[in-house]
């Protein structure tokens, strides 16, 4: 396994420009994760707001039921199965070019369910005096939610959201199931060509670790910036 490390590195990265395969895989992973995170935030925020509104106003109960079904089904089934259903059933095995986007959509919808629970908890944690203060100034409910409640809720749940997205980034490594060459799949391809397992897989693990560390660092920066208003 450890023999001929220089040779392995050469075969894995340099021979036939294989590093390009890895690089393309990395870009696919980042793109899918990026789209999925944005989708996750948008879907998650909308579902969270819908759920909170239904509870608060007692109106549009059907919307609450739909949201509940969504989070229950998504959180109760494996993401790989969701990915396969999205690709093979809903999109009827889309073209190779579209496959990464189908994957991003599946991961975004998946992430949205978890994010909605996190954001909902964040909204519930905001003192109801905040909503009342906004309403007493004549602000409509939706503007109060957007300008007063959500920014505070978002700030409170940022660490939890960060965790969700770290999980998401790593979960995209199953994209190979729908024939998308992400980072993991790229490493697999190289491994099957060179018959070296050590360098491709360890390198891939290190790259994921690097992405997650970078993401964590950026999140800490953002948290610090948002914590400005807590200064005493």
């Amino acid at each position: 396994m450890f023999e001929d490390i220089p040779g392995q590195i050469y075969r894995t990265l340099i021979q036939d420009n294989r590093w390009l395969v890895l690089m393309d895989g990395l870009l696919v992973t980042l793109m899918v994760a990026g789209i999925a995170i944005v989708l996750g935030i948008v879907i998650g925020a909308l579902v969270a707001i819908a759920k909170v509104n239904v509870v608060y106003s007692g109106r549009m109960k059907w919307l609450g039921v739909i949201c509940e079904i969504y989070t229950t089904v998504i959180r109760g089934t494996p993401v790989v199965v969701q990915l396969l259903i999205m690709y093979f059933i809903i999109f009827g095995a889309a073209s190779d070019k579209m496959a990464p986007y189908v994957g991003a959509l599946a991961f975004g919808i998946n992430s949205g369910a978890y994010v909605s629970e996190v954001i909902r908890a964040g909204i519930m944690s905001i003192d109801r005096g905040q909503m009342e203060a906004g309403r007493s100034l004549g602000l409509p409910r939706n503007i109060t939610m957007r300008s007063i409640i959500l920014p505070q809720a978002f700030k409170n749940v940022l660490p939890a959201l960060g965790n969700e997205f770290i999980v998401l980034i790593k979960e995209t490594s199953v994209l190979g199931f729908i024939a998308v060459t992400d980072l993991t799949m790229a490493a697999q391809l190289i491994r099957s060509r060179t018959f070296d397992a050590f360098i491709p897989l360890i390198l891939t693990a290190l790259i994921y670790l690097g992405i997650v560390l970078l993401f964590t660092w950026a999140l800490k920066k953002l948290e610090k910036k948002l914590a400005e208003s807590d200064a005493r």
Partner: protein
Amino acid sequence: METTQYLIETKELCKQFKDNLVLKSISKTISRGEKVVIVGPSGSGKSTFLRCLNLLEIPTSGEVWFEGKLLTGASEQEIDRLRAKMGMVFQQFNLFPHMTVEGNITLAPIKLGLMDERQAKDRAKELLSRISLLDKLDAYPSQLSGGQKQRVAIVRALAMNPDVMLFDEPTSALDPEMVGEVLDFMHALADDGMTMVVVSHEMGFAREVATRMMFMDDGKVLEEAPPTEFFGNPQNPRLQNFLSQVL
């Protein structure tokens, strides 16, 4: 042209939480320029009554009129529009912690399109200099003392140019040494002619500022009178008892 209508009128206002009847058919009027101070034992429904006036609490039955318009039963947009004319100050300040003092004051006037950013900021500065807090323009609420927070909260409501100010125990959450600065500001507002409805335990303030006192107990207004009569010659035995405890 407005006729001699009341600024606020409640008709047989009732509020029930589950099977707890908190307001028992209150019919009262408040005219422009009046300063009504409401007192009463804990749980008597003072806050609920105040919060029904701007529909933060939806009455179970009865009517609330404001500036000749029926609030109960008005559309959401209409309620929002009328609410903007009723400032409210809370016991817990309820400043927006993620915004600076300036942001707190300018948010609603800008979002509601009443002022552009420039005007709103000028108004914020003008109001803040009035309470000598201009230097706190860029501070966050967490950087203010309790008394400063409450005065900023009052200013935030004033920035909307309200026709009436509702206060729910504005000094109850303050350290004793900060009560004075808030009451002084409220006193100055009263002197400017602002219509005020104040729930408060500050009897000294009530005596000086109120044009009318209201005593609430068990969801009803049991006595109403100008402060001299109210404190000097209370009629209702429950009020007599209440006053003997708080004075």
